[in-house]
């Protein structure tokens, strides 16, 4: 790679390897509802994502994970208000970019989306081949007669069998539909892949195959943000884990330390892991608070066995943890203000 002459204005075609592919700072999304109510779906999210890295965003349903993904793609409904920034490696701020920029240069080209329910994401009345060819035409400019071979290559990248290319989405099993959607997401060679619950409804073998394939694309130099409630899938694929609770990232940790020793530091994250059938299989008592009526202090305090006076003030996020008394390795309690 050629040396960048001026570090202030890096060449967008050859980004500095130190520049994160995605840098999210203070990202908040609020929905304006009838009667002047507000729903704080995402509050003050901060994280970086580098090339070749996979960050798993985990949390209960309704915690704001998918809203965060929609914000990054500019797909929020009209009553949403955003704050903060989400900057791609080339300097595009996804929160302020206009629809034309997002549609023509971002979606599919800078960010590939692996959708939640591929069967619903694919166009039902067209074959997989037709959809791959259309996407190739749009994103790469390849024209007939090369298109047919290119579509077969694109399918092969996501391990979609060539023999099934002329099938319609409803003729595909869940696993094959997932691969077709992944193949579409990979066509634009986007440096950032965003996978929103890519394994929901798949059986364990397919979950493992799907995340292993996503991991393969990450190892090929892309950045992957995977949103999931499947902790086993997150453990298998992620380098780092971000735990979201009531719209906030409450813990951001290395995956091996999170799933192994010393384990999560936030009491909510500990509870989530302990709920797994291979661990204590014990639910966290209570339910998450309503995003339209969040408490003033720590949103988890009402369900937390460690809650005390300090929890009436919101715990600041220090880059790793947002808790007044997070568990530290080897010590029962650490002062963490």
């Amino acid at each position, binding site marked *: 790679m050629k040396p960048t002459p001026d570090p202030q204005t890096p060449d967008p075609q050859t980004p500095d390897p130190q520049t994160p592919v995605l840098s999210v700072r203070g990202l908040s999304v609020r929905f304006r509802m009838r009667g002047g109510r507000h729903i704080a779906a995402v509050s003050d999210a901060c994280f970086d994502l580098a090339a070749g890295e996979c960050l798993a965003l985990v949390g209960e349903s309704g915690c704001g994970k998918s809203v965060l993904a929609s914000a990054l793609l500019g797909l929020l409904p009209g009553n949403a208000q955003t704050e903060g920034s989400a900057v791609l490696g080339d300097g595009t701020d996804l929160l302020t970019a206009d629809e034309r920029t997002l549609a023509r240069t971002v979606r599919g080209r800078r960010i590939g989306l692996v959708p939640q329910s591929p069967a619903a994401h694919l166009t039902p009345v067209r074959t997989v081949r037709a959809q791959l060819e259309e996407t190739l035409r749009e994103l790469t400019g390849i024209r007939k007669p090369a298109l047919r071979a290119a579509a077969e290559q694109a399918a092969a990248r996501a391990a979609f069998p060539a023999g099934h290319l002329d099938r319609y989405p409803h003729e595909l099993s869940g696993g094959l539909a997932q691969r077709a959607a992944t193949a579409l997401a990979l066509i634009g060679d986007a440096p950032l892949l965003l996978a929103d619950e890519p394994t929901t*409804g798949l059986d364990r073998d*397919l979950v493992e195959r799907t995340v292993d394939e996503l991991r393969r694309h990450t190892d090929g130099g892309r950045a992957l943000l995977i949103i999931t409630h499947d902790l086993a899938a997150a453990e298998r694929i992620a380098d780092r884990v971000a735990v979201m609770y009531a719209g906030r990232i409450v813990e951001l940790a290395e995956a091996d330390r999170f799933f192994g020793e010393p384990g999560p530091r936030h009491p909510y994250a500990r509870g989530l892991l302990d709920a797994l059938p291979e661990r204590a299989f014990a639910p966290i008592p209570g339910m998450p608070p309503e995003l339209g009526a969040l408490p003033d202090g720590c949103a988890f305090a009402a369900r937390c066995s460690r809650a005390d006076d300090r929890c009436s003030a919101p715990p600041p996020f220090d880059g790793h943890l947002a808790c007044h008394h997070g568990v530290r390795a080897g010590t029962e309690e650490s002062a963490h203000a």
Partner: protein
Amino acid sequence: MLELTRITAGYDPRDPVVRDASLTIAPGESVGLLGPSGCGKSTLAKVAALLHRPDAGTVVLDGRPVRGWRHGAPRAQRTAVGVVFQQPRLSADPRLSLRELIAQPLRATGRRAEVTDRVAELAPAVGLTAELLNRRPHEVSDGQLQRACLARALVLRPRWLICDEMTAMLDASTTAALVAVVEAYRRESGAGLLAVGHDRVLLERWCDRTVGWQGISGRVATQESMSPTG
């Protein structure tokens, strides 16, 4: 006993999804049925729930052979089985509030008078607040809606529960919470359970015994049972 004997079922008689499957559940017993996507386990669960007429084979419920299915099943048999499906959005009428959703089986069987008491009893058990009960499905999360669907399955106090991938869409904490609700109900009522799923770790933790799809279908019955009684 819930006895499924040599069941063949599907949607095209020439190409049945389930072939010659047999499974017996004793009163109070919990059985996990493990199989990959598309193997036919949900179809067998529907047969066990009296919601799908098999092409061949017999279902005997508490000693009485089942002769009618869906609306054609006698009320005494129909109400003896509670069902929870995988996708709460597809199994909840979007026009009903969660309170009405839970009460629907009582209304449908002419037991309107019990609605207030029974809903008041079940809602806290499944973790739904009074405020949530007034909302409609689009205003709650998948986990909250599945809690209501479980309450609906329990509202008639069934002797048998069929849970078809009940927790596949849910996070770990909600999964553990809903399984705890099912087990609390079974302890108190002595109901039997058929839990269908693809998560071996979950089913083995949850159920008395777990059988693999291979072990109950076709002619290889019993030899491929995937785990001993635990």
